[in-house]
């Protein structure tokens, strides 16, 4: 796995989970992670230590739950939430909507759990195959969950991430097309319709808050 790819994944992920926070708070977290990446790389190169990329990848992967819970704490701790954030945490109201929401979360959770299982116990596969088949579901699952989380706040980006994650999964497991294609269509439909609904709820530009 390429060092640049892992660094980019970490930066992308940090950018995603700090999106929509007060600018100073988000910038501080991104700067701390950036400094950590630099220090880690610098020390490993100086000492000639091996495995920098896998160290960084492991640190990123194992920290995802803490990143997400930190993000949720930031929303919960703010007494006066801006309208954008209120929208981001608004949950579906009807039983059908809740069912669909829950199904997508379960599916994404399954992918995220499956990734490390493949990475650690990938049987006879080589290192590259294991990394590829382990990372793909983690990336796709994270895209789906992040898309779902931010869809009220950023409808286009949210729907794009949701659809992108579903497409990656369908392509990776193309031989399961009879299940994959309906699921992809369903998730794209859900993402687009939800993004449209959020968009139509928004006050027109220039309207008083």
């Amino acid at each position, binding site marked *: 796995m390429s060092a640049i790819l892992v660094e980019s994944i*970490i930066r992308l992920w*940090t950018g995603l989970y700090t999106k929509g926070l007060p600018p100073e708070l988000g910038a*501080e*977290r991104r*700067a*701390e*992670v*950036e*400094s*950590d990446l*630099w*220090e*880690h790389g*610098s*020390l490993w190169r100086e000492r000639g230590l091996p495995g920098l990329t896998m*160290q960084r990848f*492991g*640190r*990123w*992967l*194992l*920290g*995802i*739950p*803490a*990143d*997400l*819970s*930190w993000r949720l704490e930031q929303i919960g701790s703010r007494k006066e939430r801006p309208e954008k954030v209120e929208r981001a945490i608004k949950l579906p109201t009807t039983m059908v909507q809740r069912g669909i929401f829950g199904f997508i979360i379960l599916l994404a959770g399954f992918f995220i759990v499956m990734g490390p299982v493949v990475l650690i116990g990938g049987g006879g596969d080589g290192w590259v195959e294991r990394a590829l088949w382990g990372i793909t579901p983690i990336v796709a699952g994270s895209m789906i969950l992040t898309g779902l989380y931010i869809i009220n706040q950023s409808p286009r980006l949210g729907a794009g991430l949701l659809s992108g994650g579903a497409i990656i999964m369908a392509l990776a497991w193309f031989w399961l097309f009879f299940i994959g294609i309906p699921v992809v269509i369903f998730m794209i439909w859900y993402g687009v319709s939800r993004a449209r609904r959020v968009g139509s709820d928004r006050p027109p530009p220039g309207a008083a808050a």
Partner: protein
Amino acid sequence: MLPIELSLLEAAIELRLRGTAEFYGFMIATEVSEREGARLLTAYGTLYKALSRMEKAGLVESRWEDPLVAAAGLRPRRRLYCVTAVGQAALAKSAAAGRAVKPSLRSKLAPS
């Protein structure tokens, strides 16, 4: 106090005893991993969430490094943390309560 917070406080106090009063995220992650003999450094999310929670609780305080110092070192700015008196007292209390504080550190934890 959570185990990760206890580990970070212990590592920070040991750094201080060795003459390093302030630490930054990567430095404390390295220190914790060396103390615990872990192969993997503390995960980004776990580390920075814990530091953020500890700062809110008043156990540590932080400041951003002078940009000129960082520029002179050709590297990004560090966020420098230091253990407060509250943090040191909390660690001493944990040690008194018999929690897993290193014996070598216990004798040095008298509140300042």
